């Protein structure tokens, strides 16, 4: 009878503990937004650039892709554009693509910005903010480094401050 009781108690406490742990775990893993980590597969997307060309991330398989999320009113974004442009010019033939994704401002605003900063890499506009959501972008700027297999090799939140930093990013995803 005593053994029986110990068994009962153990099983009741086990069931209770299990449900507590499960609940806490379920809560912790319940993502309000998917938080991407290094090593995850980058979410695919299709966006149109300001010249009207469609870009699909998965079409760049075999190349490294630097995806930079930006807005015209974000000062750090503006500053790092020239660094990205320089890298783009240097690395163009080495299999690294740069895609700058605007978070859905009006084309007018983006075009005026591009008149001021001559950028030769594709500038995409995420009008419906679906890509922003898929990548869990917040705050700006944020740069995702995607390797030739489509996995995330690095995430940099905040400004790219100098040339060396930009070059290291590109180096990371060179195929």
């Amino acid at each position, binding site marked *: 009878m005593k053994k029986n009781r110990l068994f009962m108690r153990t099983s*009741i*406490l086990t069931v209770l503990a299990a449900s507590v742990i499960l609940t806490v775990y379920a809560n912790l893993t319940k993502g309000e937004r998917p938080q991407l980590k290094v090593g995850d597969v980058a979410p695919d997307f*299709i966006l149109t650039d300001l010249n009207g060309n469609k870009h699909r991330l998965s079409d760049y398989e075999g190349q490294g892709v630097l995806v930079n999320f930006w807005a015209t009113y974000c000062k750090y974004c503006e500053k790092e554009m020239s660094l990205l442009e320089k890298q783009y010019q240097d690395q163009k033939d080495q299999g690294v693509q740069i895609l700058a994704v605007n978070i859905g401002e009006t084309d*007018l605003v983006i075009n005026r910005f591009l008149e001021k900063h001559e950028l030769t890499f594709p500038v995409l506009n995420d009008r419906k903010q679906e890509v922003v959501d898929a990548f869990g972008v*917040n705050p700006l700027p944020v740069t995702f480094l995607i390797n030739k297999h489509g996995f995330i090799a690095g995430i940099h939140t905040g400004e790219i401050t100098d040339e060396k930093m930009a070059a290291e990013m590109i180096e990371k995803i060179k195929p």
Partner: protein
Amino acid sequence: MERIKCGCGHVNPHGTLLCEACGRSLTGTGAPELLDMRYEGSARRSQTYNKTFIDKVWNFFSSVKVGIWLIVITLIASGIGTIFPQKMYIPQFVPASEFYEQKYGWPGKLYYILGFHELYSQWWYMILIALIGVSLVVCSLDRAVPLFRALKAQRVDRHESFMKGQRIFGITKGENFDEAVKAVKRNLKKKRYRIREENHAILAEKGRFSRWGPYVNHIGLIIFLFGAMLRFFPGMYVDEVIDIKEGERKEIPGTDGEYYLENKQFILEVYDEKENEAFSEALKKTGDVAKNYQTDVVLYKRKGERVPGAEAGLIKEKEYSIQVNNPLKFDQYAIYQMDFKTVLSAMNFVLVEKETNEPLGEINISLDNPKMRYNLGNGYTVEILKYYPDFDLDDEGLPVTLSRDPNNPAFVFEMYTPDKPEGEISLVAIQQTVEPVGENKYKMQFAGIETKTVSILALRKDLTLWIFALGGLIFLIGLSLGSYWNHRRIWIQQRGPDIWLAAHTNKNWYGLKRELQTVLAGTGINEPEDRNEKKGK
């Protein structure tokens, strides 16, 4: 396991205070004046086993004191959680990690670090609630089982000391009470007592089930907690807000991109003075009173794979008019009308020659998709050099936009006219015009706005609701069992020539005494006295 054998022959579990069968005190100190009848003096399951780790854990949770402390701690934590706003109510564009410290200083920082800003999803808060649940289960089991045993094992003829230890007790001296006892039994039956008899002793009992009230109540609470627990599991509970502008079509959040919603139009109707003559005075006083908030929507289901940014293939599912309390239901979801707001959608400007005030042409600028150049004919052209949807000045006094939402639009226009072919520049914001490079001949004069309504809808999916309803129902049943019924027992013993009478109830002693009065009236048996009353309590 050690057990105690009572003088009456009944074997009790270790730790029993009053013999389960005859009610004799087993504590060895002799019968106190009044017996403590809580849980029938039965041994709480936990009290005597303290050997294994499991038993120790069990004992910890079986303590009501521990349970109360857990509730108090949870209350305090919840209280602290109301000092500063929760994360969902702070401005969206400031990260929570900075907001609390900036606004409230170091207490705010501490508040954030300890996680009070998102109290309900903190692991420690959830564990507190869960521990209360564990305490509920263990406390209940630990008391309900022995109580059930003791009530089942109780014998009719209780021991002398048990009778004397009851709060309501009396002896009537005399002879031959056979007739009187018969009369009492009849009366008790009329009062729906169940009567058991043994060796000149009677036990009349009713409403025993009311003793299960608190435990039924706890079962309801546990089911309730279980429902709350289920909400944390994916797919069980969804609660999202959808802001959707008239004419807009977008993915419904929370459905994994499976459904899309289109807002065809938003309708706000108000009560008409003329139609409701009786209320016309009141309506004049208060102004418009809303009669209907409605969003006409089209629901689409996605076809094919989902690629963010791409135009999804959609199949039209249904058209519906969502009104307050009349949600659009589909799959397990419901979309409710919650709120609406009006946003700027377009602005009109007229090109005017300042001196003559002559209008030279009007333009209409869509704030979501403004054009670069507007041709007014006759050689007049206006170009938008800059567009600031959310206009402000930065630290250096330069114009900037704070966001991409047209909250406070401003434009830098370049006006090309036949007599100023090189162009004139002016910055036009709401209620202000700046001419940065000298006095202009022409100006862009504000000529009105166009607005659109954004419907604010709520998406809900809740597969746990019936569990809450069930838990609540059981909770209430338990509450009524314990509140509206009492467990009453009356013991009558013929000891020699005398009649001994004792009575006990778990609550409402007054009612029991009233009942005894009626039952004993005219039988010659004295009403027993309430010994608490006698002591002046």
